[in-house]
């Protein structure tokens, strides 16, 4: 662990990214302290410019505080990002592990299913799923997970293929270990590094997908999220730029930070990528 951290902190940008994300998480957790009012509350003069009428980042067309929306929305956006990633990583590991470990017919069948999901144009499919399940936070999470898992499955399969022939796995076989135990306790921990790196980037992608869905009007109407703010502000981008710009910037910063973390994780977990000689 100490070793990991020392390698991670060598990448200054990644440390910065981590700092930003921690800040955002703290902001999300303390949202109700920073802005105790419901972010949907109409609290002032509609369409106030930033820094006027007591609004740090301005107010939207109904007089809601954009800053409050961003602080409260951080929770939702991060939650969507993390949960969707967890779900898709879980599905991906399931498919990838069984396909890679057992090979043969099981591999063929699982990979065909994966291929099917990879072949469907993903964003349209996400729209379809959300539309069918009705826009809500859970349907958005499910939709994002359903369209993102094939990448993980392929990655995990590749890792399992590589690791399953390593000698320590063979040693487990000679000890009479069961397949499930080998997969879970022996192989999986050795595949975690690339999964963590890819997963960290998927969080960013999930947040972007959520904002795209919200842009198309497929956000949860009852929960404050950055996507919601963007959806609410996008038609007035030209007249009241702040309503949609600040949440957009919030997304940009978050996605950027997560990406920096992802690269840092990559450097720290996969030191295979040598510096140029």
């Amino acid at each position, binding site marked *: 662990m100490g070793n990991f951290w020392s390698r991670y902190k060598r990448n200054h940008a990644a440390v910065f990214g981590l700092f930003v994300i921690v800040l955002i998480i703290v902001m999300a957790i303390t949202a109700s302290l920073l802005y105790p009012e419901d972010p949907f509350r109409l609290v002032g003069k509609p369409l106030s410019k930033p820094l006027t009428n007591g609004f740090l980042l301005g107010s939207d067309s109904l007089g809601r505080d954009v800053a409050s929306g961003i602080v409260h929305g951080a929770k939702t956006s991060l939650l969507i990002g993390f949960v969707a990633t967890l779900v898709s990583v879980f599905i991906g590991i399931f498919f990838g592990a069984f396909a890679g470990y057992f090979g043969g*017919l099981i591999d063929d*069948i699982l990979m065909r299913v994966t291929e099917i999901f990879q072949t469907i144009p993903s964003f349209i499919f996400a729209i379809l799923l959300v539309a069918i399940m009705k826009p809500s936070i859970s349907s958005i999470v499910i939709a994002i997970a359903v369209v993102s898992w094939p990448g993980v499955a392929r990655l995990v399969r590749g890792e399992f293929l590589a690791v399953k022939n390593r*000698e*320590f796995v*063979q040693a487990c076989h*000679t000890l*009479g270990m069961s397949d499930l135990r080998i997969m879970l306790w022996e192989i999986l*921990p050795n595949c975690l590094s690339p999964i963590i790196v890819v997963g960290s980037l998927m969080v960013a992608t999930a947040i972007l997908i959520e904002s795209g869905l919200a842009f198309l009007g497929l956000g949860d109407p009852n929960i404050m999220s950055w996507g919601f703010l963007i959806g609410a502000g996008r038609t007035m981008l030209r007249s009241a730029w702040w309503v949609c710009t600040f949440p957009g910037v919030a997304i940009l910063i978050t996605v950027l930070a997560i990406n920096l973390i992802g690269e840092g994780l990559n450097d720290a977990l996969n030191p295979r990528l040598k510096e140029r000689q």
Partner: protein
Amino acid sequence: MTKKLLSISDLSILLPTGADRQYAVQDIDLELNTGETVCVVGESGSGKSLTARAVMGLLPAPHVRVGKGEIIFGAEDLTKVTYERLRELRGSEISMIFQEPMTALNPVMTIGDQIDEIFRYHVSMSAKERAEKALSLLVDVNLPDPEKIIDAYPHELSGGQRQRSMIAMALALGPKILIADEPTTALDVTTQAQILKLISDMQKRLNTGVLFITHDFGVVADIADRVIVMQHGKIVETGTTKQVLQKPKHPYTKSLIAAIPRLKPRKARSRAAEVVLKTEGVCKSFGGGKSFFGFGKPNREVKAVQNVQIELRRGETLGVVGESGSGKSTLARCVIRLIDSDEGQIKLGDVDITKLSRKDLRPYRKRIQMVFQDPFASLNPRIRVGDIISQGPILQGEDKEDASKRAYELLDIVGLDRRSFDRFPHEFSGGQRQRIGIARALSLKPDILVADEPVSALDVSIQAQILELLDDIREQMDLSMLFITHDLRVAAQVCDYVAVMQYGKIVEMGPTAKLFKDPKDAYTKSLLAAVPGKDWHFGKLKP
């Protein structure tokens, strides 16, 4: 007539800050003359490769760089010349060949193109001339069918052919110096012999000075004029081959030489009557499967093991020797049922384990265990040593406490500190890891140990210790051992009985001493002939 080509004096190479030592190479002096072969010998981490690279200006800058000293070539100090000058010298005056010809060649360029580049960047010749020259070079290095090889990609060639191509490339412009960085380590023993011969022929023809990096004293004995022994970045001994090999002065050199397995077969022991393992007509093929939808033809079939009969008796060590691809590892994996054989019987005592289901097999698992080749791949980096050793017994139903107790005992047996129990594999050296692997194999108190090249990834001094350990254990525990190796010297040292495999078949089998002394099969003969330094092993040295 010889003249001085290269003179390295007081050279130190700095490692990046934070490395375990400050210098990779410290205060070394070295000279190379025309027509001479200087071998730099040392174990991994001795700094021999970096020394070679420093000559070419190929240190992985900026992290690793020359700290002080000079490398004089002709009238120039190579540590000071411009990059452009260095580039001119590389490939034309000084050439280099590498250990792993597969990765050292660009996978997406044909051999011809890769040779052609040298001419394009050093001399001005027409395309036609260059092509002709390239072809003649391939002929020179005895490549079969050079017209075909010139258009081939590296992956289409065998390891030996690739290394020949590398040599052709290196010698293209008749360099004054050839630096060879373990050029035969990745090759089979027969191929190694051929490549060594090729290098030495070329050297004679071109009067090249060869700086040869190796860890194998056998190779040194075969080719070197002078020897430099390195340890931890310093030169500990230097002298003519004869001096160093026959009368080593430095204790390190002495210990190294003592550790080298000799081609002298061990003394035969009396054979026990009890057969613990017996295979009959074992066959295994790979490929030939069909895809899910059944399109297309089945893949090409490789018969890895064909109709193999072996017999292992209690307390003896049966060696299976052969070159890469001979099927010896496949046989080992069939015996231990990591893979299922296609045909034949594998009997543990009276029980044919090829027919057992995975569940029924489980009780038999503990009777036969395996030691693996790669000490780094054979231990799960995420699991503590204690758990690695004790999980076998736990799986077989032993309770946790007993298993731990046993694990501690095993650590003692394989010569590891009891504190190792709670540590992770990456904290150990290769030799220590191999001891952990042996402890794991012993944890189930097996009757039979299958050792698949257990020492081939280890430095020679460590190799000797592990071989000794295995032999001790076999003795103590009355184990029988199936010992897979490519190295006849190792086989000679540990095996009572030897089977020689080629193309999946056993071509010859017999008591070690008899087989080595009086090989019947042509292949066995050629294997024995190719063992590096065999003359030296039998007390002779290159004149």
